[in-house]
């Protein structure tokens, strides 16, 4: 099972996802903001990061965090799974979807919209951790 890092400002999301993930044998570390992210990631050594996009201090904090992690040699290979409540298809100037995943703008491995069915989330994590 894997060592996962959950980054989200919503304590209820963190608690419920922790229940689901720990219930399936994963180890979960949580972080409620993106402050000192690189240090935290280098300390925790997660196998995968589940990252929210819109945090209270910055509506694009998740993007910035993903780009920061992608630029660091120690963290660039850690797969990032975006988990956001924003409708991925609203086609507004600052929204995003799986179509936008790329190494420059959105250097992440996958995108899932909140709330997510536990089975869908667990399957996606498995796919990212053990790509066949």
């Amino acid at each position, binding site marked *: 099972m894997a060592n996962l890092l959950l980054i989200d400002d*919503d304590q*209820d*999301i963190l608690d*419920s*996802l922790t*229940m*689901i993930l720990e*219930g399936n044998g994963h180890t979960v570390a949580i972080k409620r903001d993106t402050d000192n992210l690189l240090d935290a990631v280098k300390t925790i050594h997660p196998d995968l990061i589940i990252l929210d996009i*819109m945090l209270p201090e910055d*509506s694009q904090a998740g993007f910035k965090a993903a780009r920061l992690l992608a630029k660091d040699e120690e963290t660039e290979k850690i797969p990032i799974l975006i988990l*956001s*409540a*924003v*409708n*991925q*298809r*609203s*086609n*507004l*100037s*600052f*929204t995003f*979807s799986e*179509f936008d995943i790329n190494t420059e703008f959105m250097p992440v491995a996958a995108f899932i919209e*909140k*709330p*997510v*069915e*536990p089975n869908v989330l667990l399957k996606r994590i498995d796919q990212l951790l053990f790509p066949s």
Partner: protein
Amino acid sequence: MTAWLPKDRNKWLDCTSDLCNDSLHTEKLLERGAWFIQTRWKAAGICLAGALWLHLPPLQHTPGFAIDFRYLLIVGLLLVASNLIYAHLARRMADQGPTSKKLCRLLGIQVLTDFMNLSILTYGLGGVETPILILFLPHIILSTLFFSRVHSFIMTWVGIFFATLPIVLEYLGVVSTVSVFDSAHKITIISSNPTITTSYLLGIAAGMLVCWYLVSDITAILLLRERQLEQALDQLNLLDREKSQVTIRATHELKAPFAAIKSYVYTLRDGYCGPLPEKAQQVVQRIGDRCDLLMAKITDIIHLSNLRTMTPSHTRLTQVDLNAIVAREVEDAQLIGTPRGIAIHYQSEPFACPIMASKELLATMSSNLLRNAVNYSHDGGMVEVSLETTPGMVTLQIEDHGIGIPEEHLERIFEEHFRSNNAVHFNPNSTGMGLALVREIVRLHDGALSVTSQLGQGSIFTVTFAQSH
């Protein structure tokens, strides 16, 4: 004339102290520079053709005429030579990433050499004997478009200098008088009488200055308007971006609590908090369903209100392959169809169907139509999807064999929140917004949307877009 001028004209004058007309962006200057070079090729062609024509025997022997073709030939060749250099410099500048200043300098040199060529032509074609001096005026007009007001004024004086130079030199006897007529018809009075010569020179100068004054004033007004329009457009874009950010934030703030509730519902439903009695499981399931519906409604209402404020020009269109988008959405819709035994049969074109569209919006449109077809199909039913291209058009058709739409409701199904009674009974969990979203998306793409249906037999939705080449 001053009544035309905008009140803040001085402000405009203040900000044009640079060589360039600062309202012109590099891109525009590049375009105008390219046009200027193209036009000069035509002028060179006319000069060379004129020289050839003058050299032909019929005109050579026309009584009264004695035009020297060599001046046209020289100017034609000079234009060709100079234009080769300008075209090369412009290309090099474009490759290196030009600045407005560099482009304006190149344009300035071009106008200057054109004045010199025109001066030679004026001399060679007899000065006042032909209307050749008129050709100085387009360059004055172009100067007001290319350069700042001060610099176009200086350019006008340079033009006056070159326009009057042949007459002055002839008057001073520095060069011999050239005429297009033979000695019997030659006009010599202007280059021999000091009063007439002075008056003529002043007339030329006055004419060119008046031309500069009128055109530069009009240009100033037009450029000011252009700048105001650009500022208004920037302001609109800024407001649009702010509106988008507010909308996204609002969507997030409204959806996030429901996402958290739903996440807890999952933990209860799936037994992560221990086993639940059957009744409690049913209640939890219903809480979850209402959560889903409310979240979907919030998203659809915000999405629809956002689409309604957009115009086709607001939509970010790129060339997309409708075939690929529909194929992907068919796969997704099949996921909700499979548990009910509903099959989706997609008959696609064997090649890409390119249209100018927003990929996300077309995905939303296709998804809504497909999910609609699945949701209102009977268990074990079939949904047929086809994509056809006809010359210039791409047509998507989605046919179900489900409950159908009562005829009296066909016109209302694209209204938001409207749901016919048979639809509510068959599928209570729908936002009633899906088809309203589809209609808005089709409108934003200048497409056509139609529906035919028979109650109890099924419905066919057809969307047509212009094909992109």
